[in-house]
Structures are given as C-alpha cells and as structure tokens.
C-alpha cells in the first residue's frame, strides 16, 4: 500500500470524503422522509381496509348464514398487519434520518462527536434491517419446513 495515503494520526475525513458523506446524507435524508410518508400511507391503507371490511360486513348482514365475526376478524387482522409493517418500516427511516442530520451537523461544524453519532445511527439502521431480514428468513424457513413435513405425511 502506498505510504503517502496513510495519515500519521490515522484516517482523517478529507475533502473528498466530506463530499461523499455529505451527498450520502442528503440522499439518506430524502429516503428517510419519503419512508415516513410511505409509513403514513401504509397506516392509511390499513384504515381504509378496515373501513371497507366494516362496510362489507354491514352490507352482508342481510344474507342468510352470514357470520359477523369472520369479517371483524378479517378487518382487524388486516389492520394489524398494515400497522406492523408501518411500524417495522418506521424505525430504519428514523435511524437513517438521524444519520443524515448528525452527519450534516458534523460536516458543517467539524464536530467529532456528531460524526461518531452519525455512524452509530448508520450501524443501528443496518443492524435493525439485518435482524428483520434474519427474522423473515427464519419464518420462511419454518413455513418451508412445515410444508415439506405436511407433504411427506
């Protein structure tokens, strides 16, 4: 490795790094804000689904053999899934926004603590998404296993 690329005091954030980090923070901020809007839309979608299920329930109540509880459970289940998805999606957006804001402050004011804070939030975001991915893969593996076992018996 070329010796002149190494700083005497370790790695430093030079102008080029600053430009990259600043741009990453700008795009990150945009992604986070759009993510919050999408979270809101998901919750709104859940509310619309529940209202539609309730309206359908009222319209179907005249039919013979109609079970009221089925629609209530369906609507509540749907709303629960939508809200869970929105909550799960909310946190990585929050960490990304914190990363972007802290990075902006760090770069503007040469604030070492904010730089560390910014990278900490980036780490938390990646860790969060990684854990969610592991959980989802485990659920898929579990479903796959159950499907194979039920097909074998």
């Amino acid at each position, binding site marked *: *490795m*070329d010796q002149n*690329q*190494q*700083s005497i*005091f*370790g*790695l*430093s*954030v*030079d102008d*080029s*790094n*600053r430009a*990259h*980090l600043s*741009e*990453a923070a700008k*795009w*990150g901020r*945009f*992604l986070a804000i*759009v993510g919050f809007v999408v979270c809101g839309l998901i919750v709104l979608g859940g509310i619309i689904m529940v209202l539609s299920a309730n309206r359908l329930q009222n319209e179907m109540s005249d039919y013979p053999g109609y079970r009221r509880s089925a629609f209530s459970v369906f609507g509540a289940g749907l709303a629960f899934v939508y809200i869970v998805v929105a909550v799960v999606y909310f946190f990585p957006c929050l960490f990304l926004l914190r990363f972007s804001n802290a990075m902006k402050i*760090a*770069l503007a*004011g*040469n*604030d*070492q*603590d*904010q*730089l*560390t804070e910014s*990278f*900490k939030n*980036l*780490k938390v975001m*990646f*860790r969060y*998404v*990684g854990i969610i*991915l592991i959980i989802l*893969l485990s659920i898929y593996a579990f479903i796959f296993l159950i499907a194979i076992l039920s097909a074998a018996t």
Partner: protein
Amino acid sequence: MDQENQPLFGLSIDGQAASTISSSVQWARILAICGIVFGGVFVLLGIFFKTFMSKTMSMGGGLESDTVDKNAALGAGIGMVIYILMGALAILGNTFLLNYANKTSRALKTNDSAMLNSGFAGLRNYCAFWAVIMILCLLLFLLSIVTMGLM
C-alpha cells in the same frame, strides 16, 4: 458547539468511530450478500417464469382460444421482465453496499485513506441509487393514480 468536540486538524476517524463503522460494515455486508442472492433468485425466477407459464398453458391442451393464449403469453412476458428488472436492480443496488462494506473494512484495517474514500463513495452510490428508484416508484404511483382517475 462545544470547542472540545472540534479536533485540531478537522474530522478524523478515531477509535470509537472506527469501531462503529467496522460494526456497521459487518451488517452492511450481510445485507448486501442477502440482497445479491435474492436478486439472483428473482432473475432466475423471471427466466423460469415464462417457461413455467408456457408449460402450464400447454397442459391445458387446446381448451383456450388463440386470444387467451396471446394474452397469457403477454402476461407471462411482462411478468418475466418485471422479475428480471427487480432482480437486476437488487443486484446493482446491493453491489454498491458490498463495495462500501468491503472497501471501508479494508481501509480501516490498513489505514488507507484512498480506500476509505472509495468506501464512502459506495455508501453515497447506494443511497443515491435507492433514492432514484424511490423517485421512479413514486412517479409510477402518481401516474397510476392519474390514469385510474381518468378512466
């Protein structure tokens, strides 16, 4: 701002920041590898999607009319393109993340400033890539709403 927070020679990657970045890089690598694998699976699904659909249709054995066949073939073609496009986008986006992970990790191990620069460029590309994809998705969403409104 507190004067203590300002290093004499500008910002630097100190021990705490290095350990945080190192940890973030490990998770980023896992995410990138999973994303690339999923992208590959999507591309494969896209390739096999059309074959699967044409086999399913041929099992119907002349029950369908020519119009139905053509529509189904068109649907299978569109499905194939969507799967391959999604897979390609996932592979491309996560390649940037993998670049960030690998280069930053190497930079922290060898104190290589140029490598750190490439690593941060990877992070910037990753954020910019998904932001552009997000903008395109929002435009498509708006377009579909406007189209539904006009119909």
